[in-house]
């Protein structure tokens, strides 16, 4: 079973990213869980959401404490929150940042794999707003190889088409942002 923790701020789509990832994993036959941590529900407040993905039914309904992957939607959170809590040396940390890899290595006390991608810039250029969740979802799928990237993209497109039926430009922007994030994500 793979456990994932998403860190973001209220409004950045950490919950939606976890839901989209679960939906995409379901589409390829996995058992899934996606759930947010419900605390202060306001724009800008630190929020977390979680995924569990497995090949067999997932029975537990307790918090994710030792994730194998952590995705950080907002790097400014790292000044106040230990985003690597419970993440073992075998784990993977994926950060939305424009900073180069070496700088990140210096500021994060983590020996596992670190990947970076400037998802905020990508989303601004493709969607027109800083909504880093879908490009970070793409980066997650790309670097972990947990799901087939093209199937995930196809499934997400379907889900977005349902949600934004009256705003097709949002769908196209998201898909472009995901393709670019998959190309631009790099190892630190």
């Amino acid at each position, binding site marked *: 079973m793979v456990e994932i923790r998403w860190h973001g701020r209220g409004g950045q789509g950490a919950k939606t990213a976890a839901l989209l990832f679960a939906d995409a994993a*379901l589409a390829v036959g996995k058992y899934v869980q996606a759930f947010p941590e419900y605390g202060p529900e306001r724009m800008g407040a630190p929020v977390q959401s979680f995924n569990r993905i497995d090949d067999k039914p997932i029975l537990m309904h307790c918090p994710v404490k030792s994730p194998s992957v952590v995705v950080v939607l907002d790097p400014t959170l790292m000044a106040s929150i230990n985003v690597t809590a419970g993440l073992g040396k075998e784990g993977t940390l994926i950060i939305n940042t424009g900073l180069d890899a070496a700088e990140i290595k210096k500021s994060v006390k983590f020996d596992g794999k670190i990947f970076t991608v400037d998802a905020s810039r990508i989303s601004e250029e493709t969607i027109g707003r800083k909504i880093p969740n879908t490009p970070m979802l793409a980066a997650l799928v790309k670097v972990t190889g947990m799901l087939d990237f093209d199937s995930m993209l196809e499934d997400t497109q379907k889900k977005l088409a349902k949600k934004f039926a009256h705003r097709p430009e949002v769908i196209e922007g998201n898909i472009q942002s995901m393709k670019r994030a998959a190309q631009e994500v790099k190892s630190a």
Partner: protein
Amino acid sequence: MQKIILAKTGNEAMALAMKQVNPDVVAAYPITPATEIVQIFSQYVADGEVKTEFVAVESEHSAMSACIGSCAAGARTMTGTSSQGLALMYEMIYIAAGLRLPIVMADVNRALSAPINIHCDHSDSMGCRDAGWVHIFSENAQEAYDSMIQAVRIAEHKDVRLPVMVTTDGFIISHGMERIDTLPDAEVQNFIGKYDPLMHLLDVKKPFTIGAINLTDYYFEHRRAMVDAQNNSLKVIKEVGAEFGKKFDTGYGLIEKYQLDDAEVAIVALGSTCGTAKVVIDQLRAKGVKAGLLKIRVFRPFPTEEIAKALENIKTVAVLDRSDSVGGFGGPVFTEIRSALYGSAKRPQIAGFVYGLGGREIDMEQIEGLFMDLKAGKVKADSVSYLGVRE
């Protein structure tokens, strides 16, 4: 029959079940964390996907009042609420049961104020445990979906005719997305059948009075008849659960035993904690610890005999209560089970643990610790303690 596999939150699953039941009337008022059930259902109404008359009321008291009116008029009626909303319904909750109206309600279990809190515990529905409703708890979104469908059959059964409440754990299940197997609309419709009330107010050929005053002359007899209806529902719940299993592969009973038959130590729990406990039990069994779980699915009617039998060979049992009976000796599940065991010749040592109030998390380490304490004889029999609280 091909099932449709979806990723759904508990709330989405319950709203979907309501859509497929396609009731005549839904009267509801939104409240966290049950809001989505009503919100999603009202979208189905707006989109013309159901033929339901949706009554947007101004309070939960009005919601249950409208449900009582519509159900008495012969309409298949459903609603959903949580916590303070259920508390505000309280007056009408007793009336719904007393008038023997087969209303089906989704209740998302949430703590009661004060202090104000939006997270899970079972205080809200436990507060209604003596009202005459059938209470069905759900471990996960799948069970919530399946039980909402079965609830219609149970409530409307001629030997029961009582309202049924199906609950999920607030946020943990209501807002957690999981994989669930859903049924085609037609299968749900075939399973629940057409509602054919024994009598209803709009039947002008058979006029009758409903809600008449009963003083010392008949009140007691009417309440006594409700006891029979509750007792009858034990059999009906099992029959409906078995038929559901026969048709759709997953059967349901009053309780579920997990690795229990040869267990030395066991816990008893309701709701989502049962899933976590199962994972812990698998891990402990791999280490040679004979641990087991008794999950109570149906809390009203209380399956006294089945539970006493299921626990008779266990050495030590911890009963987990996600609500407290303040000033009583233990939470409601502990009290019921201890009472159920009193008449057994063989019975386990038993201790009560109140946990998880106001959404306080329970994790696998805590459950494992509890099992190990039971095994090591560190749990004092006939004691009540509080798990995971700062004291």
